[in-house]
């Protein structure tokens, strides 16, 4: 039986093993109704395994997952009509058109009252209704996938890396779509390896690394508690400038061979560094100072960067 729960999703000690590989290691977290929850982590961290257990595609090895207060392993039939899923690398029938595909999924959910034209408009595919799936670009396929995930007007939406492989404009459109869904009161569970996506969209971010959640909270709180510093980027510096900064005792890293990133506590430190570089006659073209972001948080917590591959690459 369905019970009214404050949390749309409750995950308790979730573990998944594939033979000797521990893909998900004892995860526990809750997702509130109506929020956008982002599971942020690099490829291979366990994001997809986690989301696929919650949205009933996979079975857990141990632990408990409740959706709307129901156990996902026991109440699949009751849960499925209330969720919408965009799986990773979504694909559909090659020779079926956009409109026919949405109609097909709507029939699977026995939704006689799906506003198919409204959905097509929502995901901005009006000009492509008669186009067969195989002729759509990556971004259009992804948007169709989101429309399909919405055919049953779900309460919770699972989007597994919805913007991977999309160009910046298409990514922005998907973001707007997600914010629109949140306004309509939907709960959105999102996985991503783009920190700016999580930071821009999510109410709650869970950072996952090697199958474990290493930090969780709102993006602001995560940054606040894990990165109490400013990030100073010095561009086109020479080796001399790098030595000067290091000798001054600041933590610094090479961003590429010409730029360095320096963690500073306050604005006064920026002035000190600039003066010393000037006095030492070292070379520097430009600089910027920014607040830390989730990437910095991830770097601090794991010692690794989120992107082991170029942004926009295909996730595994």
């Amino acid at each position: 039986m369905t019970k009214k729960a404050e949390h749309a999703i409750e995950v308790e000690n979730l573990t998944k093993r594939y033979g000797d590989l521990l893909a998900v290691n004892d995860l526990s977290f809750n997702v509130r109704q109506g929020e956008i929850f982002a599971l942020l982590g690099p490829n291979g961290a366990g994001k997809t395994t986690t989301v696929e257990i919650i949205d009933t595609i996979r079975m857990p090895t141990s632990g408990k997952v409740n959706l709307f207060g129901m156990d996902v392993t026991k109440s699949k039939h009751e849960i499925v009509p209330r969720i919408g899923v965009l799986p990773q690398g979504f694909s559909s029938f090659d020779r079926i058109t956009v409109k026919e595909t949405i109609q097909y999924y709507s029939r699977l959910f026995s939704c006689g009252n799906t506003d198919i034209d409204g959905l097509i408009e929502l995901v901005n595919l009006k000009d492509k209704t008669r186009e067969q799936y195989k002729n759509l670009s990556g971004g259009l396929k992804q948007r169709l996938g989101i429309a399909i995930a919405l055919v049953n007007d779900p309460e919770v939406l699972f989007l597994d890396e919805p913007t991977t492989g999309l160009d910046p404009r298409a990514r922005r459109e998907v973001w707007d779509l997600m914010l629109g869904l949140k306004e309509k009161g939907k709960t959105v569970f999102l996985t991503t390896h783009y920190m700016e996506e999580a930071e821009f969209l999510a109410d709650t971010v869970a950072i996952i690394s090697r199958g474990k959640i290493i930090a969780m909270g709102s993006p602001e709180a995560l940054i606040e508690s894990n990165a109490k510093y400013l990030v100073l980027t010095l561009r086109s510096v020479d080796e001399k400038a790098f030595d000067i900064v290091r000798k001054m005792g600041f933590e610094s890293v090479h961003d590429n061979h010409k730029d360095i990133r320096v963690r500073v506590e306050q604005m006064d430190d920026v002035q000190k560094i600039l003066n010393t570089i000037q006095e030492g006659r070292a070379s520097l073209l430009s600089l910027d100072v920014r607040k830390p972001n989730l990437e910095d948080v991830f770097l601090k917590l794991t010692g690794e960067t989120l992107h082991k591959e170029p942004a926009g690459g295909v996730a595994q």
Partner: protein
Amino acid sequence: MNPRVVGANLVVSLKSFYRAKPAMFFTIAFPILLILVFGALFMNQDNMSFDLCVQDLDHTDSSSQLVKTLELEGKFKVIRIEPSVNAAQYTRDNKSSLVLTIPKGYEGAFLQRMALNDPDTSVTLTYLYDLSSSLVFMKIHILNWVFSGINQKMTGVPPFIRSAETSMLARKYRFVEFFVPGIIAMSVMILSLFGTVHLNTELRQKGVIRKLSTTPITRTDWILSNILYQFILAVLSTTAMLLVSYAAFSVSLQINAWLPVFMLLDVFAFVGIGMIITHFTKEAESAAAAANAISFPMMFLSGSFFPLEMMPGFMQTVARILPLYYVNEGLRASMIFGDHMAALRHSAVIGVFAAVVFILGIIATQWEEDQ
């Protein structure tokens, strides 16, 4: 089971099939081509005549009469070779398998036998033949049979043993009529087996099955719509084959309720096998290879193309354990001989087989991804 879901799935499958024009063409055209090629090839099998090279060294009225008798027998198309030609050389040069030589003095010996009734007079005709030809012994056999008849007649005594021939059938069936039911059974097998394997592996590889597993469609809905889809394709393909067979060869086959029954059992059996294959082979390529490994031997060993009597004894035993054999024999029993009891027997065997593999197939079909 939800009829609305089954219907939606069926519509998507049929639209995909209709829009993949080359696949649609070959699905329908391949069995038709087989029927046209083999039907034409064996059209005159019943009135088959052999080439026979004859060298008449006697060159008399009596020897010409003998050659004419051979021609009138209807089994030979006689090619006359000049007496001056070297028969052995001729055989080699013209790749002819047998040269019959009538010796000089044939007429003299013939007259002596007939006029003087001299039992010691005889004549020897020579066969110069190429052992490597498969037809040569058949030719020799027919020649000996014709000459025995002539010898018997010359004795003037009526034959002692006579034969009375009565056919079990109202009329003799032709090769193409034997062939068409076999091709129907084979193409329904290929459609169902490869269709299932292709559909399941391709959609699984692309992730469509993963998406479907998050919708209310059940395994039963999915399998049922696949069965219906394969059956509709089987009906389309069989109708096309029968129409072509009637138009091109004026076949005389009985179309009755057994035809859809055997088609349905054929579909169930091979969709079941297809589902089992897809369980064990995850990639589309290896699944197709496994389907080939099952279907090709079945095609040739179960008597789809040729009567089982043409095969060695142990192969006939092998044929009887192949499911396709019972579809072939059941369809022939009903379509050629109108033998309903035999059709019932064969349908019972393939029915039990289909039920077992289909249930195993359902068990083997997974929705959840647990690897």
